[in-house]
């Protein structure tokens, strides 16, 4: 896979220090959010830590430790410091609403990146279940995200469990389209789901 090509602004040295002027800062944060979203979409990254370490990518043959770091540019020898990173993520979460903490109580657990909205993910899942005639049957999470022989569309292959939980709880259950079953091995985890 070709490495992600960062936009030109990623090689602009002032991007790496927090700007004092409020308007400029707002622009700067907006640019960073765009970079993060397109970076994550390119590598199908669903979750990332506050320091910019990739937690999960849907590409299972991708070595996530070898990806070019998003907050660093070796060519111009610049990197964002941790404090500013948190500010950027806060902007992405509260202002752009394109991300959410995996666990609101412990932000260091990382954030989910919504380069595709939860509603769009929900539609993808719902369409898949409907088009394969599996409406109303119980599906295991494994079947829905991992299994090779359930004919999963590429977009849903290796779907992040944390993301799935959000899609189910925040969208499908609220729409009355899904009911979850807890796993037998771990009552904290969702094991299966019935989608209608």
């Amino acid at each position, binding site marked *: 896979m070709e490495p992600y090509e960062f936009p030109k602004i990623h090689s602009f040295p002032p991007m790496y220090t927090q700007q004092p002027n409020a308007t400029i800062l707002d622009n700067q944060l907006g640019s960073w959010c765009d970079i993060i979203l397109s970076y994550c979409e390119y590598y199908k990254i669903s979750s990332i830590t506050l320091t910019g370490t990739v937690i999960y990518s849907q590409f299972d043959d991708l070595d996530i430790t070898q990806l070019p770091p998003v907050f660093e540019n070796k060519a111009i020898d610049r990197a964002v410091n941790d404090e500013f990173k948190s500010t950027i993520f806060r902007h992405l979460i509260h202002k752009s609403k394109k991300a959410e903490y995996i666990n609101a109580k412990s932000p260091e657990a990382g954030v989910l990146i919504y380069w595709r909205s939860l509603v769009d993910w929900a539609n993808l899942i719902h369409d898949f279940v409907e088009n394969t005639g599996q409406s109303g049957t119980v599906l*295991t999470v*494994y079947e829905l995200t991992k299994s090779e022989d359930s004919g999963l569309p590429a977009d849903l292959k290796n779907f992040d469990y944390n993301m799935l939980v959000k899609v189910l709880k925040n969208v499908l259950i609220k729409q*009355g389209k899904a*009911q979850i*079953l807890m796993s*037998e091995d771990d009552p904290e985890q969702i*094991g299966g789901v*019935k989608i209608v």
Partner: protein
Amino acid sequence: MGQQPSTPKITAQDRAIFQMKQQRDKLKQYQKRLNVVVLRQTNLAKEALSKGDKERALFYLRSKKQQQSVISKTYEQLDNLENLIGTIEFKLIEKDVVYGLTQGNQVLQKLNTEMSVDKIDKLMDEVEDERLKVDEVSEILGTKNALSNSEELEVDEEFERMDREINGTVQLPDVANDTHKVSFPETPSTELEPEEAQKEEQQNTPNEPLVA
């Protein structure tokens, strides 16, 4: 906020299927793990052999064979589970079908009781009676509701006239061509005249409808 959309209910059957599917997933994951082990053991055996460690290579191969037989056993179990899941799901659908049939039967029965033969007979008699009364009255008054034959004919004629007025200009040539083609073979059989006269006749006949 108070009105929550009704969520799909999880039935006991759903739970049973879910349990089996979980078992099936576990088997699948187990197979995957064993496959990785087999692959590693093959590599280790090769490595050992290239180093000249024959004993070790044989050990790895033996252990690999064992894993492979376990894998084939898990396939059998997987097959059993899938079969069972399939059977249960099919039975559930059968149950639905039977339920549907019962419902349909009930409706049909209800409809049949509403439409007893006696009732319908009586109803039809009454309708006939009423109709006769209407006819009687009409006759007494000397006016029948229906149009007479000649009136119907007049209506037809007027319709054709109107049809010609509105559509005629376009359709007429087509009609003439058709009659020409159809009448062409018939003419000689009916009239015994010299060929030239026949031709004249044929040329005239198609023109007639045009003039009219």
